[in-house]
């Protein structure tokens, strides 16, 4: 059985590579990671005439084979390593026709690697809009590789491209070389003969250039290479810059001759739009307006489908528990599995909306402008211009927000953004805040306009933001990185979004969330269900005893059930754990009941409300009722109220800081591909929560 042929798409960022990939693959695409790095690897099996099934991979966009980021490094690794599993049989080079000269650099490098290349000239319509066209015949004569004009948006030319791909795989043809190695470079690779096998000269040169960062080279080889590099005083970066110059010199003039100018272009639409969008004062204002819209969309519009999902699952659970025989299995399904699935599904609307908007910004070309506007300020905190979108979305929900950090290519900046985003108060904290704020301060008007409790709310949000920024500063100091942080980013022309790309981006995000983070969320929710439902010694007998007790208190039927449930939770493993941790949380002013709520609300912060309502036999989730009930709650040991100013403040602070959200941890695990970061995050936020609560309670009790 011969190995399946591999085809890779290569091109500069903004070359329209993604559009072509989506045209070629449709829903067959799968998104994963390149081995060992969190760089997205999009792959699909597609069918080609004569050849059959082939593997198509969309490599990250890069300007050259001199990488400045992890993503670009992946391209280099794939193309230089002859043993790489994605080593291509064919490269489809996607080039934006309106940037022929700039996008030609990478193509010339691919040609010199003697790769089998087909050139796809994308976006000729854009070039035409600028009053120009490319003479394909002349270009083809010059390059000696097959060329086809395509339109990644409409799919025009994609069939011809497929034919060319087949031809080129069956009968490879190679271009002439663009760069002649200089004497020093030749000498270098000759003396390194023992290191190489069957690589060509330019491939050898690139391996020497990048030896430090290539994972496929053995340590021994790296040492040998280093030795010879030093011996002949080979200056890597100087040689590299000279090579780039020589390349441009070799083709720039020629390429100019292949472009026909028909008419002078109209004044540029992008420039006119940029006058406002990157304006030093108006620009940020517009950005915050757009972010307000985004925030509003995740925060409130998503609740409509979320409520619908919640109710459907609750209905299904109710239906099943009424109609299935009472058993452990029924219990598992209705109280463990269904709420777990519902917990996963609940995030889908938020992920959908956030990525719809972000992808649209990316497609339009607006995202890079936002990066330009906010890079300066975010950089002070060790983050990236793109981080601001993540932090703001974190105000609605950290889960989709953290997933949006994929677009930050610098690992350290991305990691800091991931680590601090959950400190921004999300919508799940609101129900907890709403119940507790009333214990701090009665509701009254401040300066005739502001509500006192509203101001406390604002204070809690500010506290979240400030602590996120301060933590970022700390991480900036602690985390080490060899990657250089830079901005130097291209600002593409504004264009109408390719809706296909928006759709696939959203689709892939939702799918990967469900498949990766969903598994973790599901598992933890089953564990939490088990902890809250089972325990050593709550049996029929006890249930009956409490039932009689409740009836003797003169409670109605519903209240009796509620009372028995609260006792059941008390006896459960979660209840026992609550009692177990009581000594640890007593200095914070929390009793074991609050301890139970802390444990169960690890599922999601808003679960706190439900647990408190069960524990105190309240029987409904209305905040007003819960608040009243909690006010009257008395600690049997001390005879004093449980919920004092100090306890409420301490609890509020706890929820501002603590990472009480398994879904966030699951997503951090997914995005960092390691257990290390979610654990560190859980611990550092937990420590902040503990000490903030401890100080607050001890000061005010």
């Amino acid at each position, binding site marked *: 059985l011969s190995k399946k042929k591999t085809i890779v798409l290569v091109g500069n960022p903004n070359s329209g590579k993604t559009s072509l990939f989506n045209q070629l693959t449709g829903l067959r695409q799968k998104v994963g990671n390149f081995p060992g790095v969190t760089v997205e690897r999009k792959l699909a099996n597609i069918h080609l005439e004569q050849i059959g099934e082939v593997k198509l991979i969309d490599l990250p966009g890069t*300007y*050259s084979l*001199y990488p*400045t980021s992890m993503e670009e490094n992946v391209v280099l690794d794939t193309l230089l390593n002859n043993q790489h599993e994605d080593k291509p049989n064919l490269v489809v080079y996607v080039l934006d026709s309106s*940037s022929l*000269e*700039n996008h030609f*650099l990478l193509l010339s490098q691919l040609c010199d690697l003697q790769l089998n290349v087909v050139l796809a000239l994308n976006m000729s319509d854009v070039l035409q809009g600028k009053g120009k066209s490319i003479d394909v015949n002349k270009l083809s004569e010059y390059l000696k590789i097959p060329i086809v004009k395509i339109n990644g948006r409409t799919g025009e030319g994609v069939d011809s491209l497929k034919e060319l791909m087949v031809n080129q795989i069956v009968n490879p043809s190679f271009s002439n070389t663009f760069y002649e190695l200089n004497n020093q470079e030749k000498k270098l690779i000759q003396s390194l003969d023992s290191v190489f096998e069957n690589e060509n000269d330019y491939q050898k040169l690139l391996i020497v250039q990048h030896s430090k960062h290539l994972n496929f080279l053995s340590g021994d080889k790296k040492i040998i290479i280093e030795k010879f590099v030093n011996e002949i005083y080979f200056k890597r*970066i*100087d040689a*590299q*810059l000279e090579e*780039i*110059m020589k390349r*441009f010199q070799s083709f720039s003039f020629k390429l100019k001759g292949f472009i026909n100018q028909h008419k002078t272009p109209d004044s540029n639409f*992008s*420039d006119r739009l*940029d006058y406002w969008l*990157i*304006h*030093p*004062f108006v620009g*940020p204002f517009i950005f915050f307006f757009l972010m307000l819209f985004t925030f509003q969309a995740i925060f409130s519009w998503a609740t409509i489908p979320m409520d619908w999902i919640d109710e459907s699952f609750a209905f299904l659970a109710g239906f099943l528990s009424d109609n299935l025989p009472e058993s452990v299995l029924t219990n598992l399904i209705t109280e463990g599995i269904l709420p777990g699935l519902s917990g996963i599904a609940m995030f889908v609307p938020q992920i959908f909306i956030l990525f719809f908007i972000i992808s649209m910004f990316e497609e339009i070309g607006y995202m*890079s402008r936002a*990066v*330009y*506007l906010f*890079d*300066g*300020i975010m*950089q002070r905190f060790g983050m990236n211009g793109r981080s601001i979108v993540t932090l703001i979305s974190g105000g609605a929900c950290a889960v989709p927000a953290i997933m949006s950090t994929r677009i930050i290519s610098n690992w350290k900046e991305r990691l800091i953004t991931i680590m601090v985003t959950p400190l921004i108060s999300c919508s799940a904290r609101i129900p907890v805040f709403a119940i507790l704020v009333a214990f701090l301060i009665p509701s009254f008007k401040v300066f005739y306009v502001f509500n006192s409790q509203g101001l406390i709310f604002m204070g809690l949000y500010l506290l979240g933001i400030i602590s996120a920024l301060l933590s970022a500063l700390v991480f900036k100091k602690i985390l080490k990185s060899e990657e*250089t942080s*830079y*901005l*130097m*980013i*291209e*600002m*593409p*022309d504004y264009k109408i979004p390719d809706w296909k790309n928006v759709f696939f981006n959203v689709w892939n995000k939702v799918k990967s969330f469900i498949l990766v983070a969903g598994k973790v969320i599901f598992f933890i929710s089953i564990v939490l269900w088990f902890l809250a439902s089972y325990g050593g010694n709550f049996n029929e007998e006890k249930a009956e005893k409490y039932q009689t007790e409740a009836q003797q208190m003169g409670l109605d039927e519903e209240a009796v059930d509620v009372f028995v449930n609260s006792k059941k939770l008390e006896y459960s493993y979660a209840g026992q754990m609550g009692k177990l941790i009581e000594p640890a949380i007593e200095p914070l002013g929390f009793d074991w009941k609050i301890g139970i709520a802390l444990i169960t609300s690890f599922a999601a912060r808003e679960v706190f409300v439900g647990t408190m309502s069960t524990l105190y036999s309240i029987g409904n989730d209305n905040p007003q009722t819960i608040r009243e009930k909690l006010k009257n709650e008395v600690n049997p040991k001390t005879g004093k109220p449980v919920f004092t100013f100090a306890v409420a403040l301490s609890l509020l602070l706890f929820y501002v800081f603590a990472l009480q959200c398994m879904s966030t941890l699951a997503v951090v695990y997914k995005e960092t591909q390691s257990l290390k970061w979610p654990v560190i995050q859980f611990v550092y936020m937990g420590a902040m929560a503990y000490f903030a609560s401890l100080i607050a309670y001890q000061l005010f009790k």
Partner: protein
Amino acid sequence: VSSIISLSDLNVGERARVISFKNNFEASRLMTMGILPGEVIKVVQKTILGTSLFIQSENLRFALRKKEAASIIVSKE
């Protein structure tokens, strides 16, 4: 008459020709993007605090940090 300065010294709206790069990292990145010595570039805009610059050349619009711009030596015409 031309004066040799850093790109970061230009005001918004001014043009200059790239002569060379002080720093290899910036040189490599910008040259691979197509900004070579000889290229005429214009400062289109700066952010409020002057932390980043928005630049335009014949074929490319791009943004960079002030520090990065400081490493580009240009001659003002």
